[in-house]
């Protein structure tokens, strides 16, 4: 605050100052004064001083005298008045800084209103320098300020052009109809050597902030294609520093020129999204496939460089763009996560089963069909002539309660079924029964046959599977057949009618009287498979004749699939029950199954790659035949041929989403190496799916000639969120803990050398999420930039030139 005399006497040549004259502050000027005060610091960064001049009452000079002059702010450079601003144009810090800089940088930032003006400037710059063209919907906004601040720094390097006319943006090829938001284009006029040639433009795709403009200009300033001749692992460019990937085009001496042109083409496409470098292969000793022609280096530390074989420049671009999209999302997530951390959402349930059950807890379950047993009633229930199904559960345990709900569905389904009694025991109320029955896990489902041996259910915990198990386990397993007629009937699928709807295939064990070892093993296998498979057994004198019909000799298995009615004879070479179980399970697998949530585990156990066709609805007749031919080939043992109906298994959409950035046209044939490497290959969409085509494609896969469309993450399942770190809380408040040598009070704990007796407490220090989303990851794009933002010192220097 100064008097007018003092103020004018202090004005230095070349220094800018913003002055506001006032006599006695009127209340209406108060908000403006506040804003002006707030902007003091921001303007000081640009060497502009802000002064409030107190006018003496009697002063009637130019600035103090007139009433309306008091409603204005004046910008001086030295003692020359540059501009006067009505105070209502300076409504906040952004508008003050923007307007003041706009006035000061009158020469550096051209303001255009028409296309012609723009074209003229552009033409004048061609071959000389580049242009930064910005559109802001209005002056005095935050975006306007960002542009002006950038111009302050880069104004000498590039020509800045500003417009508030949305019309001018429409033309430059950006078809974006949304002109309400500010935009910035970098026009490469320096490269346009001929007047007729338009300047290439690279739009900045991020929001208009000083940081982003700075980043964008830095990227534009980097060489289009960097030539490198060292190990890519060691290369670092401005792109990597700014958190963008770097694409290497691996070149051969012979094709260097062409490769260079390719690199330039790619570089133009990726400008602002990734850097491009060209690396002559003979310059460095690369230990990679000779076929690889592209390498991708990501800014994330510790991520190895990926070497790829790509056929098309588009693939390079897609590769990078998808990645940057992904990163953008991840970055957002990062931010969200940070917010979440502050909000402490450790207490929010993230277990889908627990949450689902707790959302359902107020609904009263229709338990009429299920008998509730207690410590007192359990023993008597066991004496019932019916087979008693018991669900042992704990009323506080989510999986138990989820299964209880399926169990209710089973009870509804089996309503009226004779000879089966459904019951439940809550182990939380009656631990005695559960302990006695040796229930160590919740839930456990058992079937008790009139007090005898109990059968524990070990199948899928779903209502259909459980209902089928309860019904099928009613039949003795294996079923002893007395005559050849019965045996033949059994193979034809003649079963008690109530079983028919649960029945898939019949297995008949045929034994000669002598083979008692195999027979006993088979009977034991029957016990294990009871409820899951229908097994029959025939060991009469004419067993040999029966088995001969199917070209085997006893001991043998006859397998009748209900689908086609064919019977297959298999010699029973293995003698142990477990082997027989394995064998039956294996033989019952389909050759070309439709994969569902329920049956996948059976096929997973084979631990083979999957050749899987995703189809929206049933697959076509020809494709089905071709695939069946493929599946029936003997080397089929090497992989599982199957298909997935997205209509029956909608979660298949989720799989496709993970495999492909964009949903491919269906049906699509995919090879997935689930158990080794996790690569996913998709059958070329143009080719018809025929046995030969697929086989030759598979050959190429094996030879390593195909490029995986994606690779399954091999990340471990880490704790989704950190735990409460009670140890730390106690350390800071419970003094006894300080007695412990490993703990130094009040000091940040240093990571201790490995092997020291006290390792760090894992809680809260373990990486809480999958790699890549950790809180510690400081090098996520944007964050690094803070360090590289223009230094204020630099601005001071420049200011003297103004």
């Amino acid at each position: 605050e100064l008097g007018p005399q003092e103020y004018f006497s202090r004005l230095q040549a070349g220094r800018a100052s913003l002055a506001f004259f006032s006599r006695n502050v009127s209340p209406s000027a108060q908000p403006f004064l506040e804003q002006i005060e707030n902007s003091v610091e921001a303007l000081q960064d640009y060497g502009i001083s802000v002064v409030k001049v107190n006018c003496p009452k009697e002063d009637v000079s130019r600035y103090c005298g007139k009433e309306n002059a008091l409603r204005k702010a004046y910008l001086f450079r030295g003692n020359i008045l540059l501009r006067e601003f009505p105070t209502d144009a300076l409504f906040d810090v952004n508008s003050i800084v923007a307007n003041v800089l706009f006035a000061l940088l009158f020469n550096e930032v051209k303001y255009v209103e028409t296309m012609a003006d723009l074209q003229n400037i552009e033409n004048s710059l061609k071959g000389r320098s580049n242009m930064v063209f910005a559109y802001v919907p209005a002056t005095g906004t935050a975006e306007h300020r960002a542009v002006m601040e950038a111009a302050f720094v880069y104004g000498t390097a590039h020509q800045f052009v500003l417009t508030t006319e949305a019309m001018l943006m429409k033309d430059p090829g950006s078809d974006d109809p949304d002109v309400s938001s500010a935009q910035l284009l970098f026009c490469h006029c320096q490269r346009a050597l001929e007047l007729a040639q338009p300047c290439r433009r690279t739009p900045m795709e991020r929001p208009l902030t000083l940081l982003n403009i700075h980043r964008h200009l830095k990227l534009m300033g980097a060489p289009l294609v960097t030539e490198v001749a060292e190990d890519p692992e060691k290369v670092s460019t401005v792109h990597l520093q700014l958190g963008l990937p770097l694409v290497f085009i691996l070149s051969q001496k012979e094709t260097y020129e062409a490769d260079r042109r390719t690199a330039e083409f790619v570089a133009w496409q990726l400008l602002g999204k990734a850097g491009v470098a060209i690396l002559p292969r003979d310059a460095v000793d690369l230990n990679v496939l000779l076929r690889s022609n592209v390498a991708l280096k990501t800014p994330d530390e510790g991520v190895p460089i990926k070497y790829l074989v790509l056929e098309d420049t588009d693939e390079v671009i897609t590769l990078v763009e998808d990645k940057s999209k992904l990163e953008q999302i991840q970055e957002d997530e990062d931010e969200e996560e940070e917010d979440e951390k502050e909000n402490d959402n450790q207490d929010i349930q993230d277990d889908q089963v627990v949450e689902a059950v707790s959302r359902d807890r107020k609904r009263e379950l229709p338990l009429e069909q299920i008998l509730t047993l207690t410590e007192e009633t359990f023993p008597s229930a066991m004496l019932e002539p019916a087979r008693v199904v018991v669900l042992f559960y704990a009323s506080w345990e989510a999986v138990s309660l989820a299964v209880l709900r399926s169990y209710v569905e089973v009870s509804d389904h089996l309503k009226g079924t004779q000879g089966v009694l459904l019951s439940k025991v809550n182990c939380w109320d009656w631990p005695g029964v559960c302990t006695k029955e040796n229930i160590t896990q919740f839930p456990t489902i058992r079937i008790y046959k009139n007090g005898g041996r109990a059968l524990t259910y070990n199948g899928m915990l779903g209502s259909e599977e459980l209902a089928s198990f309860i019904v099928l386990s009613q039949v003795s397993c294996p079923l002893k057949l007395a005559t050849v007629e019965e045996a033949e009937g059994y193979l034809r699928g003649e079963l008690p009618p109530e079983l028919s709807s649960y029945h898939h295939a019949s297995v008949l064990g045929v034994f000669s009287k002598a083979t008692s070892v195999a027979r006993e093993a088979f009977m034991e296998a029957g016990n294990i498979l009871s409820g899951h498979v229908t097994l029959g057994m025939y060991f009469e004198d004419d067993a040999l004749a029966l088995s001969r019909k199917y070209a085997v000799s006893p001991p043998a298995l006859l397998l009748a699939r209900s689908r086609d009615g064919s019977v297959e004879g298999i010699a029973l070479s293995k003698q142990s029950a477990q082997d027989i179980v394995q064998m039956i399970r294996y033989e019952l697998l389909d050759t070309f199954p439709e994969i569902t949530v329920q049956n996948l585990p059976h096929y997973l156990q084979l631990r083979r790659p999957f050749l899987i066709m995703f189809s929206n609805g049933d697959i076509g007749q020809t494709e089905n035949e071709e695939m069946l031919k493929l599946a029936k080939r003997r080397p089929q043992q090497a992989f599982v041929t199957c298909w997935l109906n997205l209509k029956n298994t909608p979660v298949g959409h989720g799989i496709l989403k993970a495999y492909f950035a964009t949903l491919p046209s269906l049906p699509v044939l995919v090879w997935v190496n689930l158990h080794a490497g996790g690569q996913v290959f998709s059958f070329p969409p143009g080719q018809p799916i025929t046995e030969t085509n697929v086989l030759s494609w598979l050959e190429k896969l094996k030879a390593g000639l195909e490029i995986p469309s994606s690779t399954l993450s091999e990340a471990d399942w880490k704790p989704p969120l950190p735990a409460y770190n009670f140890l730390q809380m106690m350390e800071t408040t419970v003094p006894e803990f300080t007695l412990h040598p490993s703990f130094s009070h009040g000091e940040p704990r240093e990571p201790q050398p490995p092997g020291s007796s006290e390792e760090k407490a894992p809680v809260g220090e373990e990486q809480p999420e999958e790699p890549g989303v950790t809180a510690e990851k400081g090098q996520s794009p944007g964050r690094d930039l803070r360090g590289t933002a223009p230094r204020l010192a630099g601005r001071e220097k420049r200011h003297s030139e103004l």
Partner: protein
Amino acid sequence: MGLGMKMGLEMGMGIRMGMEMGIEDGDGVGDDEDGKGVGDGDEDRDRVGGKDGDEDKHDYCIIGAGPSGLQMAYFLQQAGRDYVVFERGHAPGSFFALYPRHRKLISINKQYTGKSNSEFNLPHAWNPLMVRYLEDFAALLELRVQYNTAIIHVTLDADPQAWNGHYFVLTDQNRQKYKCSSLLVATGTWVPNVVNFPGSEYVEGYETVSINPEDFAGQTVLILGRGNSAFETAENILGVTNFIHMVSRSRVRLSWATHYVGDLRAINNGLLDTYQLKSLDGLLEGDLEDLAIVKDKKGKLHITLRYYLENRNTSAGIDSITLPQDELDNFATRAPYDRVIRCLGWKFDFAIYNRSLRLMPGKGNKNKYPQIKPNYESRGTRGLFILGTASHSVDFRKSAGGFIHGFRYTTRAVHRLLENRHHGVPWPSTVYPITQLTNSIIKRVNEASGLYQMFSVLADIILLRENATAFEYLEEYPVGVLAELETQTGRKAANGLFVIIMEYGRNFSGADKDVFYYNRAVGEAQHAWQSNFLHPVIYYYKRLPTEREMRFRPPDWPLPRPDAIHHIVEDFLTDWTAPNAHILPLRRFLENCLGTDLRNFFAESCFLFAFTRQKLPPFCQQGYVRMQGLVGTRRLQGHAMEAGLLENYTVTDFTGDRLLSSHQGSQDQLLQDHAMPVRPLQHVVNAKDEL
């Protein structure tokens, strides 16, 4: 399930409840009196038994057929071991035949807890039929008890072949000798504490005093001691006496304030009301050893101080004795008393043990108990274990080890240690897949009465298997010997362990603390570590703590500093099954200790993971992949989708298609606009192929 777990049931047979009942204060009375002059080994009888060969030889000898002795007998019988019990009385539980004199058992007889869970109800249901029960117990189970056998001397016979390098040689009142490999002392604390001061001959003992209130009619009574037996006696005669005064050194500790069952229980504290409200009866604080009692001619008893007696002229009569009121006319106990009753509690009988056994009394206020290690083995002699009330030095004034409802668990623990040490039977354990980790802890902390009663003394131990895919669960292990877990249990703890223990808040009770202070309960899981009431605490160690670490643990901490710790927030109903407040924070703790994801998933999620990830979370790996996936109902899946925890794929997703087209469109446009010739990379590839 381990043998021990079945105990409650097998004791069933209509008499089960008996074991859970009893006099909680093992010695029946207050613990606040220091017994003085503990007996030394009696040298007179120090004569090693004859080696005449007809001596009775056993693997295990138990002295005392009280609750703990019989219980140990039961365990040994179940395990098929060679044992014998010696009981000096003609029936079991001779202490309980006599005490408590006024038949006021201090047990809480609570049949209704609002729960049917019998394991939970154990600590709440007592049945005061102790002796009958013990008799039935011994008889029904055909335990080998030798009645009317008083062991009067115990000595050692060194022998390198013996389990412990020596045999214990026991001599009974008939000079019959017994040779034992292992000695289990379950004698309780039955020697009444006596204080010697001038005039102490006028004092009647609790053990002999009349229990008929009429004998006290119109009398003025002084009671020495301030434990449960003192108050029990006072309570019994309160209605008929002129007034009762009680003298002891320390202030009254009320059990409901200290959480220590041996402190004064509400059932016996009627006198406090008359003291506080009617100013009739009184409590006084003073050191009994400074006292003296003189009897006047009318037979009234006067209290004076030893100091006056020592300075008096011996030749003068009773009248010459200075009474405090002569100098201080408002001396509290100036009124003469008709009776002085001693109710000072009991102590362990040290007299029968030869000095070579080095069975030493504890320090300070634990001097009525022998010194033992946290595994209940004598500090002086290997192979000698102290069971029951006498083992209370381990948790004196803290937990329930001195009382039936506590030592029934420690006795079982000792038996398990012995099974491992002498018979190679490892501590019983159950192996579970890691997916059951959270559940198994929740189940135990909610039902395990041993953890609850013997809080901070017995702990459940979870031993992790390699790669943390499975774990082994050991119940109710004495946490004081955690460092020796591998040798004591025969189990391996190579991959880290959890210790589950119950604790009160560290600053909850004590002198001058209002235990009903406002806001005393902690309700939020994130402040659980400040919980005040008994609550479960889980310690995680990456490796077993060493003995050194156990020794140098912070004072008052049951365990040394863990690698991580979790408190389950205290619960008003002691029901720790709330999904969000109890189970979720526990799961997060376990997950972070193990570095894995312990969430449950529906089969559909596992299906998706199986196709899109190379690794599966444990729940899918151990369930779904083994064909035991959790399918769930449509409704549940709907709930999960609503919660955003499961994606709904049934709504066909067209965004993918749109994305594809717009993506390509913009690219095409870019190319056209700039009219750049497309140079496919094919070129590069072809060139290389030629090489």
